[in-house]
């Protein structure tokens, strides 16, 4: 049955935004923990650890997010878990975010001049204190802009969860479109909502980057 595109449909789409946000938040939180582990492993003295972290990043940056989603989705059955779109999407996006954030943060850690680490070592600070009090605070400043930039990529990435059947913004649009058959209007609305989520973050990232560059020039 084809029916009109009504305000109820708009409401349905708009409220689906919360699932896009929830999924993004889960993936970002998980990715932050994973990313920190990856970044520290990548810049550690331990060769094996470095190799593993490098391999992890290469695999997740060298394969499509869509394939990662499918693999986790069908992989749940392989390890004997129930197939659940939210769980699959959360796991896949977390792994994806870990790889990207890990790479961004590794770059930031390495961008801190080596003299900082040497000075901290000369002051008899151990690895933990060196990282916690000297390197990471400086790296965080460097990493802020690209991290916000990645958040945009992550929010857009959550749209792929619709393909494995998780009802977030994009899938809500598909559902409404199947009922009303107003694809131009429906997907236009969906796109506009994504734009409203992502654009401010993009502007913020650019602003932070410009401020960073000015600070470095001084």
């Amino acid at each position, binding site marked *: 049955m084809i029916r009109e595109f009504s305000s109820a449909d708009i409401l349905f789409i708009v409220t689906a935004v919360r699932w896009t946000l929830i999924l993004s938040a889960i993936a970002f939180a998980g990715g932050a923990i994973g990313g920190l582990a990856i970044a520290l492993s990548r810049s550690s003295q331990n060769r094996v650890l470095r190799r593993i972290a490098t391999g992890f990043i290469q*695999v997740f940056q060298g394969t499509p997010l869509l*394939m990662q989603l*499918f693999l986790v989705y069908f992989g749940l059955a392989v390890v004997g878990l129930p197939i659940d779109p939210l769980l699959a999407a959360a796991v896949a996006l977390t792994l994806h975010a870990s790889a990207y954030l890990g790479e961004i943060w590794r770059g930031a850690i390495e961008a801190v001049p080596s003299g900082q680490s040497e000075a901290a070592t000369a002051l008899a600070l151990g690895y933990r204190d060196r990282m916690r009090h000297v390197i990471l605070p400086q790296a965080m400043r460097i990493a802020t802009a690209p991290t916000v930039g990645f958040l*945009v990529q992550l929010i857009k990435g959550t749209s792929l969860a619709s393909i494995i059947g998780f009802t977030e913004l994009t899938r809500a649009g598909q559902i409404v479109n199947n009922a009303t058959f107003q694809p131009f209007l429906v997907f236009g609305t969906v796109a506009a909502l994504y734009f409203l989520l992502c654009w401010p973050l993009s502007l913020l990232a650019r602003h932070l980057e410009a401020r960073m560059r000015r600070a470095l020039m001084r």
Partner: protein
Amino acid sequence: MYQFNFQPVIQNLDLLLFGAWLTVRLSLMAMLFGLVVSVLGAVAKTSGIRPLRWLVDAYVEVIRNTPFLVQIFFIFFGLPAVGISMSPNTAALVALVVNVGAYGTEIIRAGIESIPRGQIEAGRALGLNPVQIFRYVVVKPALRNIYPSLTSQFIYLMLTSSVVSVISANDLASAGADLNARTFASFEIYLVLTVLYFLLALGFSTLFAAIRRVFFTYPAGR
């Protein structure tokens, strides 16, 4: 315990390999046309014509701040409503070109702007005309500066192109989806698909590194 069954994948490996070729072809075509769009976009952005710049800005911002999946839905399902219908394959190519064109516009603009003013002034002081300056002074260093961004953009494009399978355009992911519909060896199929995409990405980044060594061997300036 899960029983792995790679038989369907092995028996149909030729289909998947053909799909991989389709993905490569689609990505190369999208990149080629996308670069044309990018150059036009970058020229328009650096031109003094205000409305043109706003138009390009709007295009770049809209594309970069919406998911590719929604873009392809809009192009394939939405545009027919205003009289623009395309086959899945054409829609896939158009969507990828539009997408990579937006990212490429920014990359190329940055490349042009990365050339120090002094280089252009030196060319002018030596009596070279603007076309000669662009050709002999600007192009190679600019290309060298943006080469890493352009090549990683290509690989990202190739990975993103798997999304065109949702409108059943022909590519590697679609070949996998077809096979999955016939055999239901889902995990095994997607594992092999993932490996194939990874090999493509690895192959291209190796190729790009080799090209870089051949063409951009001059030592970096300070």
